[in-house]
């Protein structure tokens, strides 16, 4: 089948009544949770995962993916109106979005970020369409050495890029990988670190880790910071019209943002948050008016929002073609596929083409729906932001408990959520970032497995990994990243830079 036939078949799958309905439900709930400050895409996807157990795999994935990219659209709303990021990857949008609100131009900012999100999302989808089939062809020839090198590079990049404290990022990855070793060893069946708990033989439930680290810890932190919300201005259609100058200044940042987002999204391990930080930094550097940044410059919201959504869509590329999650949230989505008995990887596109092409087609539909949800219906989300947090969080706690319990009908997992929730809260107080931990946890067992296989093939000779072109290049880039982080640490120490963040970020 050629590309066009696949695309057509994908749309045929995506426009079935059931898939359309769940796509709408996904993007609607995604925008809803994204707009609420404190619930990121990761917590939203984990929380809604149990709702999809009884659906067809394609439908389940269409809905969860809708939640993921919908949350990135919705997240900018509270960044702009409240100066509170709806999801961590919208945090950068606060820098210039909130000043625009203070100048009474919230409407323009909301309109502009929706357009940027749509553009970035579209760019990511086109990349998915064109790159995925190519990568699958390569991936069939990949051996354990290549898989090992790709994952190591992704893990080190996730831990070190944009971090003020690379050692802490790396520590989170390593702790995640250690937690990933819990459970029966694949080749010998020895139950590692199970301490006699039968429940730990299959490993720690990753839903419990995700919901604990990202859901529960966020709630504890948010109750403590339960500030009175500022007055929310109403948004009319008239107020959404940008000035001619802003229209002229917008396209290039949007294009650059989409490119950056697509790159970091497609790279396993690094996700949308990193893409937005880098997108913003680059805009500030290339701008002829860097002094306007932080005071409501339109470039400062266009580039990160475009990068954000491009990264989300591009994160599906490594997940669907290599079986390596592109971001922490993608890891949860991959878990959803596994629950339905589908193994993501190069074989997926051949064995279940309807899943891949149907999902890709649903992205177009979902992004169009989001355009409608976020421009004509923006008033709904503005009103939603007026619901007090004190009423929402007890409901979220119940949903988290029910969701985790249902996965394995296990009270043990509910207690694990609690443990990881408390640990996540304390780690964030200690300025650790949590997304690298989850990525380490997910990739850890795959890294171990591929490393063991590679060493078996090459008789324990590590240099053979360096001689292969793809794995050698990636490992060399990893070494450069590590050297660069050492430089960052030494520089920070010399400058005695105060720590920029009071608490660590949660998800991706």
């Amino acid at each position, binding site marked *: 089948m050629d590309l066009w036939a696949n695309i057509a078949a994908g749309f045929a799958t995506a426009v079935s009544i059931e898939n359309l309905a769940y796509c709408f439900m996904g993007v609607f709930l995604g925008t809803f949770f994204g707009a609420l400050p404190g619930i990121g895409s990761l917590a939203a996807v984990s929380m809604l995962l149990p709702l999809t157990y009884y659906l067809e795999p394609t439908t389940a994935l269409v809905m969860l993916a809708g939640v993921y990219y919908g949350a990135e659209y919705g997240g900018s709303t509270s960044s702009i109106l409240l100066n509170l990021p709806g999801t961590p990857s919208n945090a950068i949008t606060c820098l210039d979005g909130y000043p625009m609100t203070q100048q009474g131009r919230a409407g323009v900012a909301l309109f502009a970020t929706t357009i940027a999100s749509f553009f970035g999302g579209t760019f990511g989808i086109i990349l998915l369409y064109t790159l995925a089939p190519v990568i699958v062809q390569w991936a069939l020839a990949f051996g354990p050495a290549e898989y090992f090198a790709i994952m190591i590079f992704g893990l080190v990049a996730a831990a070190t890029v944009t971090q003020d404290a690379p050692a*802490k990022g790396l520590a989170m990855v*390593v702790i995640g990988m*250690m937690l990933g070793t819990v459970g029966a060893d694949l080749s010998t069946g020895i139950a590692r670190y199970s301490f006699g708990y039968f429940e730990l033989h299959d490993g720690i439930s990753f839903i419990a880790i995700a919901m604990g680290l990202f859901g529960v810890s966020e709630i504890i932190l948010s109750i403590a910071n339960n500030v009175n919300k500022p007055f929310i201005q109403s948004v009319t259609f008239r107020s959404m019209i940008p000035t001619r100058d802003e229209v002229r200044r917008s396209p290039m940042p949007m294009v650059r943002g989409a490119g950056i987002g697509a790159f970091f999204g497609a790279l396993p391990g690094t996700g949308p948050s990193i893409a937005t930080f880098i997108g913003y930094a680059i805009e500030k550097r290339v701008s002829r008016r860097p002094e306007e940044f932080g005071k409501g410059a339109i470039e400062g919201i266009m580039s990160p929002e475009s990068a954000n959504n491009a990264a989300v869509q591009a994160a599906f590329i490594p997940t669907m073609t290599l079986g390596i999650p592109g971001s922490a949230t993608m890891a949860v989505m991959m878990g959803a596929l596994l629950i339905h008995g589908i193994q993501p990887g190069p074989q997926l596109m051949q064995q279940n083409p309807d899943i891949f092409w149907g999902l890709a087609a649903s992205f177009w539909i979902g992004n169009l729906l989001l355009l409608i949800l976020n421009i004509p219906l923006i008033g709904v989300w503005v009103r939603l932001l007026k619901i007090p947090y*004190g009423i929402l969080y007890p409901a979220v*706690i*119940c949903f988290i408990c029910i969701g985790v319990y249902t996965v394995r009908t296990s009270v043990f997992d509910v207690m694990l959520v609690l443990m990881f929730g408390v640990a996540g809260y304390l780690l964030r107080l200690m300025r650790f970032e949590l997304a690298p931990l989850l990525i380490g946890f997910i990739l850890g067992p795959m890294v171990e497995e591929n490393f063991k296989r590679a060493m078996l093939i090459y008789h324990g000779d590590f240099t053979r990994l360096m001689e292969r072109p793809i794995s050698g290049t990636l490992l060399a880039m990893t070494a450069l990243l590590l050297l660069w982080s050492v430089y960052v*640490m030494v520089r920070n120490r010399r400058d005695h830079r105060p720590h920029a963040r009071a608490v660590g970020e949660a998800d991706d």
Partner: protein
Amino acid sequence: MQRIDPVEILSGLFVAGIGLFFFLGAADYPMGTINRMGPGFVPRSLGAIGMGLGLIIMTGGWRVPGRLPRVAWRPLAAIIAAIVLFAVLLPRVGLVVAALGASILSMLGNPLAGWRMIATTSVAISVVCWILFILLLGLPIPAFWTDI
């Protein structure tokens, strides 16, 4: 002003401690050789790397001023109690009562919540959970003690 940053020292100790734990724990599993690695090889190496990273993090807190962040004890205690109560109640008296109890306890973490708000919100949440998860989605969870 303090000349050490206690956050970095504690972070380093924490990471090194976890590393040590996994390093020692791996002693029970066969290491194997480099071309035929046993189940102990990777956890033991990760433990060693963790201990090293912990030391590096600790040095970052040396001769840098800083202070410990404040722990929000009340929300922390309320959320812990709510989830424990949920785990205890669910298999014994069913979802509706467990959700009711968990909402009440978790709302005690918010100093601004009055009794009236706690009562109405928690009843509403347990009814929503019942309708959504049992009646609409049909999850295999007992709704009341009669279903167990």
